């Protein structure tokens, strides 16, 4: 079988470029900053290739729909669990708390 990574897209047909500029949101900046800190010395929790591998392994439907930094934060969650820094259960419970705190009821 000819495996082709979902991210490996050189030469595939695509439409015109969108050249509009985008100022990163605070959420995007924080995701970027956390990713850099977790990857860099002294922590070195994972290499950028692990990051790539995790992004490529997202469900294809999720991968296609997700925004750029959405993929990053999903990969960060997976790697934090994989490296036993956080557990899935504590992330789920924190997520519930954050939502109930922030979402208008």
């Amino acid at each position, binding site marked *: 079988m*000819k*495996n082709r*990574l979902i991210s*490996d897209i*050189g*030469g595939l047909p695509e439409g015109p470029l969108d050249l509009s500029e985008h100022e990163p949101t605070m959420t995007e900046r924080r995701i970027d900053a956390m990713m850099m800190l977790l990857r860099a010395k002294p922590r070195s929790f994972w*290499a950028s*290739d*692990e990051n790539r591998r995790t992004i490529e392994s997202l469900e294809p439907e999720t991968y296609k729909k997700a925004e750029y930094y959405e993929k990053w934060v999903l990969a960060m969650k997976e790697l934090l669990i994989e490296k036993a820094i956080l557990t899935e259960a504590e992330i789920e419970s924190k997520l519930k708390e954050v939502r109930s705190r922030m979402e208008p009821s």
Partner: protein
Amino acid sequence: MSDQFKVGSKVRITNAYPPGHIRTPFFLRGKEGLIIRHFGKYPNPERLAYGLNGLPKLNLYQVLFDMETTWRGDGSFAAKDTLTADIYETWLELV
């Protein structure tokens, strides 16, 4: 073994499609090119991707390809146009 490739060597990218994390673009598999630069040795990304140390390090080369041949004439380029990719030695074969 790592000395078999030099700047000026004609090479073919291995025509293989293994699973897992790979840094050799799909569109270049089986294509022929020319080594134009040697960058030194770098950890193997196919191992780094799984939390391994990436050793032994691999020689990394910049390989030049002709657009016309690579895309079999199907694209938007002029006759002289080229492309390059950075390829680790494990994906190269001498032509």
